[in-house]
């Protein structure tokens, strides 16, 4: 079971309060996690990555295991701790000051 932490606005959109738990058959990659997330919560399509290009929205980041995985290839395996459910995969909005 993969654990995903969403930013507050996306939790509100998806009507979830806490972490999202997803079953990912096969390799656990960022693309696989986001695919499964969007299947379960269609409202999130287009909010994390572009509908057509599937590019990450510029102000979003992906963290896990104290590492910034934002610029890793989408098909690269996520850390074992994420794949095992020991650590969450975190979708984070960039901070905005002012």
């Amino acid at each position, binding site marked *: 079971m993969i654990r995903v932490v969403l930013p507050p606005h996306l939790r509100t959109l998806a009507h979830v309060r806490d972490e999202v738990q997803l079953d990912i058959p096969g390799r656990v990659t960022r693309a696989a996690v986001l695919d499964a997330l969007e299947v379960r919560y269609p409202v999130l399509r287009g909010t994390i990555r572009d509908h057509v290009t599937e590019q990450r*929205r510029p102000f979003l980041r992906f963290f896990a295991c104290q590492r910034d995985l934002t610029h890793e290839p989408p098909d690269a395996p996520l850390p074992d701790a994420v794949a095992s459910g020991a650590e969450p995969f975190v979708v984070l909005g960039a901070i905005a000051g002012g």
Partner: protein
Amino acid sequence: MSGVRVLVGTRKGAFILTADGKRKQWDVSGPHFAGWEIYHVKGSPADPNRVYASQSSGWFGQVIQRSCDGGKTWETPGGGMTKTPDGMPAGESNKFVYDASPDTGKPLTTHQWYDGTQHPWEFKRVWHLEPSLTDPATVYAGVEDAGLFRTSDGGTTWQELAGLRGHGTGPKWQPGAGGMCLHTILLDPSNPRRMHVAISAAGAFRSDDGGTTWKPINQGLRSQYIPDPTAEVGHCVHRIALHRLRPKVLFMQKHWDVMRSDDAGESWREISGNLPTDFGFVIDVHAHEPDTIYVVPIKSDSEHYPPEGKLRVYRSRTGGNEWEALTKGLPQRDCYVNVLRDAMAVDSLDACGVYFGTTGGQVYLSADAGDSWTPIVRDLPAVLSVEVQTLR
């Protein structure tokens, strides 16, 4: 019992203000979609309980929300949580993809960029939602970068009316400082095939075949900020308005100049008359008097606040040229708010109500057609849009 429902979009959420026909006591609900920019909220004329909202964010992009109970509860069409992958909803209610098909999309590749080069169209957000006059499930969406979309399934899916960008002048369109947005959609109540749109900074356009083909309608406009002041396109039209009983007469607030057309936009003439400044964003028409119109003059294109720090609505009862300042109840000193292009509306009660919202978070009401004003709310986030539903 009659009443009104005021739909307010702000920088940080939507608010719904309701009152009975006396318009004295107001109930305020919100923020809906707290923290998101709500460019526009509008109800269906065919079913007042059907309300659509454009919710957007620099982080998360565009979301379309729909209510079937007058804004009490909301849903994202087709976006509910799935129990199983089988038969899952498409989740495309926020999918606005420009038509690039060979037949209609071929000429739609680029528009003019700030540096004079050509730039591809990139969807950013929905500025304006215009529900059909007859079908609650049909809605038109004006978007940035400028384009027109339509849904006929209640917002679940959207298709571009590509003939607008494809009629030939698209490569000459360019963004203003606020982006290149299609912000005004007017449906002709007397002719279901006719609609008008306005784009900053391209101008006004009309379709007479339900949105399939379009033509620019900017003859008579004069804009000193473009190389050819009378060019076919390139004018920064801020807003156009019409009266439902006289839809061939259009009123326009342009970047500078207040304009009027008596022939559905074929030609325009200036009606700025004695306004203190003819720069501004909003313009609207009295619900029962087709020649009574309202504007809020703003000092200039570089100083977006009322002249002299006095918030004044100007009313013409003669269809333009002769204007009177309406000040009773409005701040007449130290006021430096703006009133954005989608932030004025009228109700259709017997005594026409006029409403507008400011970037300072006030929503003002005049229940006597502009003679006097009172704030319904004072401290909302910056107001982006105001719409009114008259409930009977």
